[in-house]
């Protein structure tokens, strides 16, 4: 049984043209003599795109090969032993999305800065020596904040600490279309900067809120689109993507794990391998791994992020 024309990855108008001219399945136009017939109502480039679409088969991999891929995945330590423990002892995985949820003031920016620096550390210290792309949508990034974060990383001397900062590339975006434009240009950015291992978006919720304050449907459509784009980006370029999303409502005093939800719903959770929740306490910060495809959930308390 041959594939229907409608199942091919072609523009809708091209599918319509084919059907109107009597070509309903791939078998109908696969034979060579029909090429001239096609040329009557299709341009050359359209014939070419038709040929490539017809040949493209949906791919499937064995579970084994996927596991092998997972075993070769790289991780970098967060340099916070309690958080590394929550993350199975290995840290943040490359090629995956990690969602970070927190209310205002719960340490999201501090965590983002820490991860950018931790990724830059050499392998001997648990890092990967990679550059980071920090997409700042709210105006959270500052040199002084980053320098302070560098000093909080354990056992680092001052000159070494600030040398980590030259691996962070900051982009300031304000609204949804700027964020979409930036991420669509990612392949150019990756080749320009080289050695990028981490992309941080702080926060991913705000630009859509800013552009579509009253249109929740439009926000959700774009969130879904972006989640697919980011998922593919993480896998293709083998980068860790950390998305900070705004928490939905004040957490209860107790259970960070059960009350953790994002203002965007679960759109990011659906594509995230790990979901980290943050909460500020009077004596420090509460960090929880509230969902993960790789590790059991858990919660911990730290003095400083």
């Amino acid at each position, binding site marked *: 049984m041959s594939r229907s024309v409608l199942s091919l990855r072609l523009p809708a108008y091209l599918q319509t043209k084919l059907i109107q001219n009597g070509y309903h399945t791939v078998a109908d136009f696969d034979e060579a003599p029909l090429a001239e017939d096609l040329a009557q109502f299709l341009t050359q480039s*359209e014939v070419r795109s038709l040929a490539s679409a017809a040949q493209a088969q949906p791919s499937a991999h064995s579970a084994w090969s996927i596991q092998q891929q997972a075993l070769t995945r790289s991780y970098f330590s967060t340099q916070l032993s309690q958080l590394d423990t929550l993350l199975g002892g290995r840290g943040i995985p490359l090629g995956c999305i990690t969602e970070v949820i927190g209310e*205002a003031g719960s340490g999201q920016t501090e965590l983002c800065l820490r991860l950018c620096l931790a990724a830059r550390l050499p392998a001997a210290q648990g890092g990967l020596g990679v550059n980071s792309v920090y997409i700042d949508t709210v105006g959270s990034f500052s040199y002084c904040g980053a320098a*302070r974060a560098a000093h909080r990383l354990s056992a680092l001397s001052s000159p070494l600490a600030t040398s980590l900062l*030259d691996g962070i590339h900051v982009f300031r975006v304000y609204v949804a*279309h700027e964020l*979409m434009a930036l991420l669509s240009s990612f392949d150019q950015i990756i080749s320009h900067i080289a050695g990028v291992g981490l992309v941080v978006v702080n926060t991913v919720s705000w630009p859509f809120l800013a552009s579509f*304050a009253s249109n929740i449907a439009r926000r959700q459509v774009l969130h879904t689109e972006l989640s697919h784009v980011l998922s593919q980006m993480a896998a293709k370029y083998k980068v860790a993507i950390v998305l900070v999303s705004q928490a939905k409502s004040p957490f209860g005093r107790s259970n960070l794990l059960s009350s953790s939800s994002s203002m965007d719903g679960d759109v990011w959770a659906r594509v995230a391998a790990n979901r980290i929740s943050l909460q500020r306490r009077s004596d420090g910060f509460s960090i929880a791994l509230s969902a993960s495809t790789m590790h059991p959930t858990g919660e911990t308390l730290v003095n400083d992020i």
Partner: protein
Amino acid sequence: MSALTEEEQALLAKCVAKVGCEEPHQCLHIPYSEFLRSTGLTEEQGQLAWALLCRTTYPWQQHCRLATELKDDDVWISTGDLEIDKCLGGGIRLGSMVEVVGESASGKTQLCIQLAISAQLPETYGGLDGDVIYISTEGPFPVNRLESMVYPLVHRVCGEDYATSVDPADFMHRIQVAEFDSMETMFHAFDYKVPALLSTGNVRLMIVDSIAAHLRFNTSDDDAGQSPFAFYKERSESLVAMGAKFKRWANEYSCAFVFINQVTDMFTGDNGNGNGNGTPSAEFRSRPGLSLPSQGNSTESDSSAELSSSTDMGTGFAAMATRKKAPALGAVWSNIIDTRIMMYQRRGIAPSEFRLASDAQDDATNQATIEPPSHLLRTRRWIENAFSPWAPSAQCEVVLDESGFQHISHANS
């Protein structure tokens, strides 16, 4: 950015027309697959068009900054007191959205007046030689307090010579005050008047005193039938729209925005005593009276350890929470600001209210002999950096006098 060729312009125009929007960047508001469908472009052409849209909307090469290049962006407006500045990470950072929150009479307006004067000082004295915009929504602008603070504050920060050489009127000229009595007029000003003032390029600080006044309750007459849900929804949207504008201006015009916010009561089912009647009892209002443990072993140092400024108040955040109060305007607003400064005070107690818990029966005899510690008698104030992306949370005990706020070093108390 290189100018577009005619071909490219035509392509953009075609996309805009087919997608049905008004501006090219709005084509990026739909998923890529929908874009291809609407424009009818082939995969190849579609990718070209999309890349062109991205390039014109956000030319990333111009926006990429290394963290180390951003060192010059760390510019601070001093509060006029070095310890308070240190507590806040350097003062008020240009480009930031700062909230100053506290109960009424905790000194929020005084702090902002102090900032307004300090921002105008010349750079040699740690100021930014900048103009100030002051949006006033809670009654008339306190012009007398401003005038009376200039000389003492300038004297404290810059010394006698400079202070006598300046005219307070100069400081008052450079503060543009706008008073609004409703939400509509305030937002209208945000859309038109404020950008016009900011575009001079000289404004370094804008203060909104307060952001909560017209937004906390539905006071407009024409929406008499509006449901609470609709009111909060509309308020959130207004705050978000306003926040987005200010964030961009803060960066573009190198200006700091300070918003004064009020506190609101938090109602929970259980008011902490298991009563479950849901109303804030007297328990949770500021209470001046305090009890000390048995006086047998208590020396001055013991009692000060028990009631030192850091342990009994906790952090302002926690203290407010135990008193069932939270900043107004909700989570939407909390996510728009980047820094929250909390101001709180504990009023002094009268000696007659001073009791020793264990000797409650014999209070008549004991009151004559025990002198309450001085730090309980006077009003005490704190400024706290509750959260900020550029500094750890910290608090500082302060005193308020004619020159504004100054820190108190604990060696003296």
